């Protein structure tokens, strides 16, 4: 899995706690014992992650379904 959203749409977001902009980086996401590295926006300081709506409803939903039916 690589990138499933357009990061330029999310440029304005900062981590409110650390007050630093969210930056692209590798994040692991997992389901039913399967883990995948994905490029996501995250806080370089505290690790807070931003999963965009289109990715949650798109690729992630698709993978969830595929893994459940496996």
């Amino acid at each position, binding site marked *: 899995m690589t990138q499933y959203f357009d990061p330029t749409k999310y440029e304005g977001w900062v981590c409110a*706690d650390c007050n630093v902009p969210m930056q692209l980086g590798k994040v692991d996401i997992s389901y039913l014992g399967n883990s995948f590295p994905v490029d996501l926006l995250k806080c370089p300081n505290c690790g807070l992650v931003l999963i965009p709506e289109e990715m949650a409803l798109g690729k992630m939903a698709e993978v969830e379904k595929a893994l*459940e039916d496996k």
Partner: protein
Amino acid sequence: MTLAIVAGDFSGAHKVFRKSVPFPEIIARTCDQPCQAKCNRETLGGVIRVADLERASVEFSTEPPQKITILPKKKSRVAIIGGGLSGLTAAFDLARKGYQVDLFEEQNQLGGRLWDFSEEQLPREILERETKLIAQVGVKIHLNERVEPTHPIWDEADAIYLGIGKSASVYSFPQSVTPTTFQTSQPKVFAGGSLLHPYSSILSVSDGCRAAISIDRFLQKVSLTASRINEGAYETRLYTNLAGLASVETILPRQIRYTKEEVQAEAKRCIQCECMECVKSCEYLKHYGGYPKKYVREIYNNMSMLVRARTSNNFINSCALCGLCGEVCPTDLNMGQPIKETREKMVETSRMPASAHDFALRDMAFSNGEKFAMAKNAPIGGRGEAMLRPYNEFVYFPGCQLSGSSPDYTEKAYSFLRDTFYDVGLMLRCCGAPADWAGRKDLFAQSQAEFRAEHEKLGKPKVILTCSSCYQVFQQYYPDVEILSFWDVYDQHGQFPKREFFAPVAIHDPCSTRYESHIQDSVRSILTRMGGEIQELELSREKTECCSFGGAMWLANKPVAEKAVQRRINESPLDYVTYCAMCRNFFAKRGKRATHIFDYIFGGTEADLALVPAVGFSQNHENRARLKEKLLRELWSETMPEQAAFESIRLTLPDDVQKQVEDRLILVEDMQKVIEHAERTGKRMFNKSTQHYLAYFKPASVTYWVEYTSQADGSFLVHKAYSHRMEIGK
């Protein structure tokens, strides 16, 4: 039947046969097989000798006599004039439906022209034995009694059936008989039998049976003509592909009668023209493009393989468990049963995907948690002074969906019950159906144990149920608990102010009432007494369809569920009246004009109640919680336990967001938890240009996201919410 014969299972064949005809022993020996003219084998070796197969199936069967069930007694009286096969059939069917039936026969024996058959073809002993069946079902037999036009029965009976052949004309009216209903020009008089056609035992049975349906409807004051296509003999719409089939000659018996081997060989010639009745009536089966025999075989033989195959999980979870397939199937094959067992197996072997039933199971957990669940004996004092007995005779169990959709009606229903019976307690909780449908025996057992404990504490009162799914669960899992349907109670003790009906209405029977004809009758009676004119849907009562709530179909397979509801909606342009909160909600969501019968009983007159929008999921929870709070406060002077921190988070949802979260099955409480967590811990993102916050939280297995702004008044405006099940981190 032919399949069973091929397998040498004559008892099985007998069972199939007698399911479709009364007096199977007589029919099997006298059937004149009018159906042969249509048999597809005609040009492929000759038509199947159906009557010989029937005869063999009863003669070689070792099946004990059938247990005959009789419905509760009804008040109406029916007179049957003529003891021939059509009269016997009508008498038998009506007596089984609970009517008081008197049968008059001029001769000193029952059977009419059946006595013309030779002893060899129809032994007298069998003829006498089978015609006696009607006495067993409670028919009063009057032999040697000719019913002259002056006979008092003409006035006394609420309906009369003339099954007396050509001589019926002496009674002068049956010159005009409507062919589909058998009603004569005199409305309470029906006629059939060889009056209408040359003698044929099977056609006489068909007449008697169809006239009985008309009389039943006539006495219940519902339409005689609605949905009566495909009754009696009709031209099948079945398409059977005969290409590539080899011709096989008819097997003739070498002696007078077939031996077992011969009849098996003859049955083997049957092409098994596929029926597909179930597929025609079920969107789910249609969607998966197969038919139950195939599925059931796969499920039983190959469960492990099936469970592993792609998309099969979805297949197993999409069935509504509604039982319609079993009802329309000539061989009683109900997919619901094996499907449910498969779900249970999947759960036991950890192959059940979490997503399919999760929402419904959490809803159940909510209902059985402290926000809603409670069990109390009737409050002391107030109207109808509760008897100062330690235990109540009754407890009202409104069910979670009614309480959530119509808390005000729930309250009124409870108050009606207390006015009627005085000591009626109240039990708020979920019956456990979602766990049952999800194959979660563990969760169901837990819910059952909780119910039992509470019920015992109340002194084991009789349980009054409004929801038909609850009714089904209680019938199946609490055989020792006495239950009553609210609708039966209301029909007996309620009030029936006339309501304004601008047009006839159609009744949608919830699929969980499929075999509860008493509930269906009560609802019709209530509605009629309030002034409603009912037009039956083609598929009603035991043939009713599921609104897609059943089996959690609506959660597992949205496209199929939507087709199923839409199909139901398309069946009539009339307003639908139903008696299940969920059915009503599913119709309303798709813009169908629909009411709950409570709208007529307790609803106001100012608004058009058929247009009230469906109650959303969050509102449904909120309503349940408030109902408990209100009743506790007003009736028992008690207060609710402390609120959790997240409950004080106030949200504002614009209409489009409201719709979005409803579609995505995200509840207000889920969003409250996200915001409470974000505000308390500071873990959230901020967007300077829009001034929006974005935060996520995972209360259990689903991660919820909310984009929001804080308002000056301390509330939160929600811009969007979404969720996923994948987890962040390894």
